């Protein structure tokens, strides 16, 4: 650390005198707080700077001063919000058990993604560990900057422990680039007090049709479900996946105008026309306020959303319940997913750091106890199946009026149909959002909306239409 700082200083002074602004020297580089910055930046500042490809065998004399199969003493992990806080929980027990030190740096989500992607593309300056949403997997793997940890996962024998639906996006051409963390089995959360007040019987609801019938009992101005105009795509994807729909065919053709997608579009339109929906931008404070005052009485969301609600509108604790998502027809599938993250290792870090990183990841994720810790504290729903056997999932949630929602979600999780994300997923998001806006406002029929969305995606990505 001191060594790299000295080098840093010399270079800086050179730069400064060249610019003729030595007077401003005091305002240049500050101290670098994270050990990892010195590790990665120091690495690139030194002689072996151009190890853009595999930093695998490069043995930088960095803080760890180790090589071969030894583990670095410290690594840095990048994450956001609740995920970062969850990793913080693991830090102390890990240090006690395995002796390594992990520094968690917290970012805004989009900031972290942009920053991490640029740094793995440039082959320098990335942290050893980063959080990756499954949605982004295809794009991140494409950069070639992630380490194939498949062999290590094999060696550790943990692969079968995770929900099978998680692996799809994380593997490519026989390589595996991440260890699954959490997933978001979807439930229909609802305000039980509002339902009671207006005589709704949601517990016996099985299909979307019944759900709409119940919703119509609510007075004007009270919705049973929100369709956020900024995120029609999110609702569509949950409902589409529930039907086992896939956005692309096996051969890669765009298939978001399939019969299943059309079914979803019709369902959303029907709910809107029945007057049971509101249209509030999701994740805004109005969104939370409407849930808090009960004028939106239902929220279709991943299991983790309970934690969010608890944090944002804790006053409503005890008034909520959750049910499985309504099926399209009696007996139909009621399992789907929203969200889910994984941990990856940057390919550019030294072997020693990568080993430490994997050791930590295995400790945090392929580990019943730690997964449960994160589940209890922040509601991150583990993708690691052995955790489901814990009685933590049978415990009633105070926020949900004592309901043991965990067990319900644990039942849903293994039945979630798998789904594909590609680098073209953002195009689908855009197309669905813009065309469904027109559909909801009545300018397009559901059929026209899905067709035109599919055309738009095909046009922009150069893919075939299915």
């Amino acid at each position: 650390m001191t060594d790299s700082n000295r080098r840093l200083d010399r270079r800086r002074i050179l730069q400064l005198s060249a610019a003729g602004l030595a007077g401003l020297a005091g305002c240049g580089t500050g101290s670098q707080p994270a050990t990892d910055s010195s590790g990665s930046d120091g690495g690139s500042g030194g002689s072996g700077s151009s190890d853009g490809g595999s930093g695998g065998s490069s043995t930088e004399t960095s803080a760890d001063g180790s090589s071969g199969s030894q583990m670095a003493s410290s690594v840095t992990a990048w994450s956001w919000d609740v995920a970062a806080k969850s990793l913080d929980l693991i830090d102390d027990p890990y240090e006690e058990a395995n002796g390594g030190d992990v520094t968690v740096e917290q970012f805004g989500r989009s900031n972290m993604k942009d920053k991490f992607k640029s740094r793995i593309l440039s082959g320098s300056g990335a942290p050893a560990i980063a959080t990756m949403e499954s949605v982004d997997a295809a794009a991140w793997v494409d950069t070639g900057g992630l380490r194939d940890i498949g062999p290590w996962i094999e060696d550790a024998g943990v692969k079968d422990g995770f929900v099978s639906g998680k692996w799809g996006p994380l593997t490519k051409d026989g390589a595996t680039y991440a260890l699954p963390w959490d997933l978001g089995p979807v439930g229909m959360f609802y305000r039980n007090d509002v339902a009671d007040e207006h005589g709704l019987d949601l517990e016996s609801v099985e299909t979307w049709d019944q759900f709409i019938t119940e919703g119509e009992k609510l007075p004007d101005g009270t919705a049973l479900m929100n369709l956020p105009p900024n995120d029609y795509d999110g609702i569509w994807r949950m409902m589409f996946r529930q039907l086992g729909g896939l956005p692309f065919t096996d051969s890669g053709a765009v298939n978001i105008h399939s019969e299943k997608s059309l079914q979803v579009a019709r369902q959303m339109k029907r709910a809107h026309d029945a007057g049971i929906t509101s249209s509030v931008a999701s994740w805004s404070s109005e969104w939370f306020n409407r849930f808090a005052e009960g004028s939106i009485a239902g929220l279709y969301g991943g299991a983790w959303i309970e934690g969010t609600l608890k944090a944002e509108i804790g006053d409503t604790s005890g008034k909520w319940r959750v049910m499985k998502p309504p099926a399209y027809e009696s007996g139909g599938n009621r399992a789907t997913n929203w969200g889910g993250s994984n941990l990856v290792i940057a390919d550019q870090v030294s072997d020693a750091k990568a080993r430490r990183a994997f050791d930590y990841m295995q400790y945090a994720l392929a580990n019943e106890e730690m997964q449960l810790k994160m589940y209890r504290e922040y509601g991150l729903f583990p993708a690691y199946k052995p955790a489901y056997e814990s009685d933590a999932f049978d415990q009633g949630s105070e926020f949900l009026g004592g309901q043991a929602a965990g067990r319900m979600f644990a039942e849903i999780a293994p039945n979630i149909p798998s789904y594909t994300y590609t680098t073209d997923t953002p195009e689908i998001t855009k197309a669905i959002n813009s065309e469904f806006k027109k559909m909801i406002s009545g300018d397009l029929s559901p059929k026209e909306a899905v067709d035109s969305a599919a055309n738009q995606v095909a046009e922009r990505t150069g893919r075939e239409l299915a």
Partner: protein
Amino acid sequence: MRKQTRDEAIWRFLGYTFVLLVTLLMVVPIYWIIVASTLPEQAFLSAGTDIQLFPGSNFFANLEALQARESVDFIQSIWNSVFIAIVYTLLSLVLCSMGGFAFAKYEFRFKEPIFYAILATLTLPIQLLVIPLFLLISQMGLTNSYWAIILPWAANPLGIFLMRQNMKQIPDALLESARIDGATEFQLYYRIALPTMKSSLAALAIVLFLFQWNLFLFPLVVLNQGKYTIPVAINELVGAQRVYYDQIMVAAALSIIPLFLVFLFLQRHFVSGILAGSVKE
């Protein structure tokens, strides 16, 4: 005759209407940011139903929420931005004016190709440069320093181009007579070229300041927390679970102030016509 005045009046009316419209288009968003920053979030997000046109009293509450953020030190980021933009602008003004002077008033080998090469770099979008630049900066050991984003565009190609165009207007005769009076080449630049360029330097200063002020992707990649500039800090408020619109509005409103001061300071210097009558051709 009468018809002509009527036509003139119509044109003038149309002209004023146009100017007024453009002004409105420019002022309304800024006004809206300021109003929104003083309202609780739900008050401006539900604007579709009842629009709040006047400031409320929630500014300090929003500001407090902003300052309570763990991962963003917004006040620090204002300082970062101000410092970086000022140092950058000054440094770049010097380099651009020197470069412009050389291209406008000296003959040297490969002058044209070099100039066009510099001009050609204008076509490279910043997004394309982020990764190579980051590599360069990190190999110089400058990651996470202010210099990391001051140096790369210090000799701004647009600035060099503008300065060259402007300095071409300086009469050669003026420089010749100064030479005869015994001025050194540096004095020609410093004593004659620079003072006559005051207004264009002020205009360029604004362009450069804004350029640096608005940079997003490169600072995000190259700087760490604590060194973030304003755009990066604002983007930190887009969380995974929630978008903090109220705090974003306060942050945006606050970030206008330094820009406003810069304009106020520089507009005094938009004086033209200093050269008028300096030589008799």
